[in-house]
């Protein structure tokens, strides 16, 4: 509450954040995140510099590198309005399954970049037995052939499925909140925010690391963006992937404009100040929203993890560009089994 008091009495929010987050390690409150998101472009460089200081103090210079792959693409029964893989929209994405040899090949390619994480994703409401069997076979095949940590993102889980994934050796599970609670019904109508929270809680209790983030630039207000940051903070995930909307043809959000790059950078910094001890990962949409220059600014503004290569249905930067940038910025790639 020190922060709010200072803010109300006119103290600069960046000064408050420096004292509160950098010096004392206390995350910004939701109201303080709103104040950060309302700072002008003339403060952006100062804000990014502060977020970078916070990242370096609480997370260090290393960057966690991950590759992701879609095990089951398209045909999803859910209606997440940003997603081209929903079967409810007129998106051109068709349903396709990846076979196990190709899955292992993708894991090997990812490991060759120096990545320590490989996340297997499926476009489903939750896994059925066929998908769980494919996971058992796929995770075992990867572990036998590739030295890399395996993560998964398979939608909403039952307790039994959580236990199965732990037994397979899946060490991290991704399940995003997608948006703050108040905006969530504008984004998804086929399941609830609380259903998402339930899976996240089960994952945390299981001992798997929780990867839980969301998307910004979906038409939410600044207050709702701050709400997402605060609700993520309450969950205390190990990692927060931050996606910027890449408007997909045929989806309800397909006609939205990509987020302004300054707003995107402010959001990165604000999330870092709200989540000082959490891995904050560049996820989808950064190429479109930020481009090369913005990618650098974000890495110097709070980001400490990246997805290399392509995404689930769209293409990313050539990994050599990202790896060269990390080298230039003197940010070492996090080694396998090393904790940030």
């Amino acid at each position, binding site marked *: 509450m020190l922060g709010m008091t200072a803010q109300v009495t006119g103290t600069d929010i960046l000064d408050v954040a420096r004292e509160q987050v950098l010096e004392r390690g206390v995350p910004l409150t939701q109201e303080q995140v709103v104040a950060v998101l309302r700072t002008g472009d003339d403060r952006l460089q100062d804000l990014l510099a502060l977020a970078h200081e916070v990242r370096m103090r609480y997370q260090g210079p290393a960057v966690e590198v991950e590759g992701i*792959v879609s095990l089951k693409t398209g045909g999803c029964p859910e209606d997440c309005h940003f997603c081209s893989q929903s079967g409810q929209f007129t998106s051109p994405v068709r349903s*396709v399954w*990846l076979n196990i040899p190709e899955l292992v090949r*993708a894991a090997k*390619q990812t490991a060759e970049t120096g990545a320590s994480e490989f996340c297997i994703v499926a476009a489903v409401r939750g896994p059925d037995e066929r998908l769980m069997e494919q996971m058992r076979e796929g995770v075992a095949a990867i572990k036998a052939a590739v030295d890399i940590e395996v993560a998964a993102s398979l939608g909403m889980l039952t307790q039994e499925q959580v236990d199965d994934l732990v037994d397979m050796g899946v060490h991290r599970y991704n399940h995003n909140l997608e948006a703050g609670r108040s905006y969530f019904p504008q984004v998804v109508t086929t399941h609830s925010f609380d259903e998402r929270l339930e899976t996240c809680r089960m994952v945390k209790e299981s001992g798997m690391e929780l990867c839980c983030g969301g998307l910004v630039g979906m038409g939410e207000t600044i207050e709702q963006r701050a709400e997402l940051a605060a609700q993520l903070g309450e969950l205390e995930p190990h990692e927060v992937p931050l996606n910027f909307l*890449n408007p997909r043809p045929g989806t309800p959000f397909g006609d939205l404009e990509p987020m302004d790059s300054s707003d995107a950078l402010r959001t990165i910094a604000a999330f870092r100040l709200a989540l000082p001890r959490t891995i904050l990962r560049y996820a989808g949409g950064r190429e479109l929203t930020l481009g090369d220059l913005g990618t650098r600014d974000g890495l110097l503004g709070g980001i400490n993890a990246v997805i290399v*290569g392509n995404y689930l249905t769209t293409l*990313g930067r*050539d*990994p050599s560009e990202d790896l060269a940038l990390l080298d230039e910025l003197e940010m070492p790639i996090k080694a396998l089994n090393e904790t940030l």
Partner: protein
Amino acid sequence: MFADVDPDGPVARGDGPGVWCGQCGTELAGGDHARCAARAALEPPRYCMQCRRRMQVQVTPGAWTATCSRHGSVERSTWS
């Protein structure tokens, strides 16, 4: 259109130049596909340029494979 090939070149194992835009699925001739061409840098094709069928597209970290049920598959590496 593919990201890394001549937009008029053969795609999806077809023999001749394409008729349809791989990004939006409309006719290439006479249409403005500047936005499609820009999008192709970050998008695999979704439509077969020979027959306009929607293709099954698998993206992996380092490549994409697009398969037309009539004209076959093509794979492109996206890593240097």
